[in-house]
């Protein structure tokens, strides 16, 4: 077992475990923290895949900005106590079972997908994940979506103002 494999399995285990902890934590703050752990694990995977730029962005944007925002909101609402009323157990079970079914179905498909049988993701090697290459592509081929996403931000901004502003 190479280091990469060990790291892969470790990060995967961490990600899944943290993800499950997000679900089961009764305290929303804990959920947030576990989610941040998931993001770290995923960033680890990015590094394994040599997608350095995304690894960093993931940490900055998700773990840094977005999750902090979540945390703020939760704090603001004073939800740190275990205040969330529990769902009916049957509903929970139904949710879990149907989510499980979803997973099963997809996994069974992937097992049958012969074209995925012997393919591997290239680890460590390859420089497409480097910021230089990504930047080049972003500002040449993908400049239109890049610009258009500004509209998205504009509307989000306007939206936040409209929603948040006191009348």
């Amino acid at each position, binding site marked *: 077992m190479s280091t990469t494999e060990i790291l892969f399995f470790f990060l995967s285990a961490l990600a899944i475990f943290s993800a499950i902890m997000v679900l089961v934590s009764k305290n929303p703050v804990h959920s947030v923290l576990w989610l941040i752990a998931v993001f770290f694990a995923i960033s680890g*995977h*990015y590094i394994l895949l040599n997608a350095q730029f995304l690894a960093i962005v993931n940490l900055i944007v*998700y773990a840094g900005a977005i999750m902090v925002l979540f945390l703020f909101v939760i704090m603001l609402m004073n939800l740190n106590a275990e205040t969330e009323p529990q769902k009916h157990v049957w509903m929970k079970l139904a949710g879990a079972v149907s989510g499980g079914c979803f*997973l099963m179905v997809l996994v069974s498909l992937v097992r049958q997908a012969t074209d*995925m049988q012997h*393919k591997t993701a*290239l680890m460590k090697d390859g420089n*497409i994940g480097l910021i230089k290459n*990504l930047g080049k592509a972003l500002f040449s081929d993908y400049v239109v979506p890049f610009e258009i996403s500004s509209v998205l931000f504009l509307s989000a901004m306007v939206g936040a103002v409209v929603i948040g502003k006191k009348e």
Partner: protein
Amino acid sequence: MPIQYYIYLCLALFSIGIIGVLTRRNAIIVFMCVELMLNAVNLLLVAFSKMHYGLAIGANPETTVGIDGQLFVFFIMVVAAAEVSVGLAIIVMMYRNTHSVDINFLNRLKN
């Protein structure tokens, strides 16, 4: 690394996200689970990007195949950020009016 491992991992994370959406009542947690789903997709896209890259590099060492996958991830993050800002604003607005973020209380509109 066999690509299937990545697929399984991402599907697992994705499904956990779905299960979270289905089982939790706190709107913020539900939203967080959605973010989890998005991240699962991100990881999958990166893995696929590297897979395609790996397949293409044999023929052409200078290839940039797969870079679009990683860029897509970038755009997903952009969108996610925008969505979060709006989403949290809405949740806060809801909280201001009802002092609750329990989605089970969202039942004035039905039938």
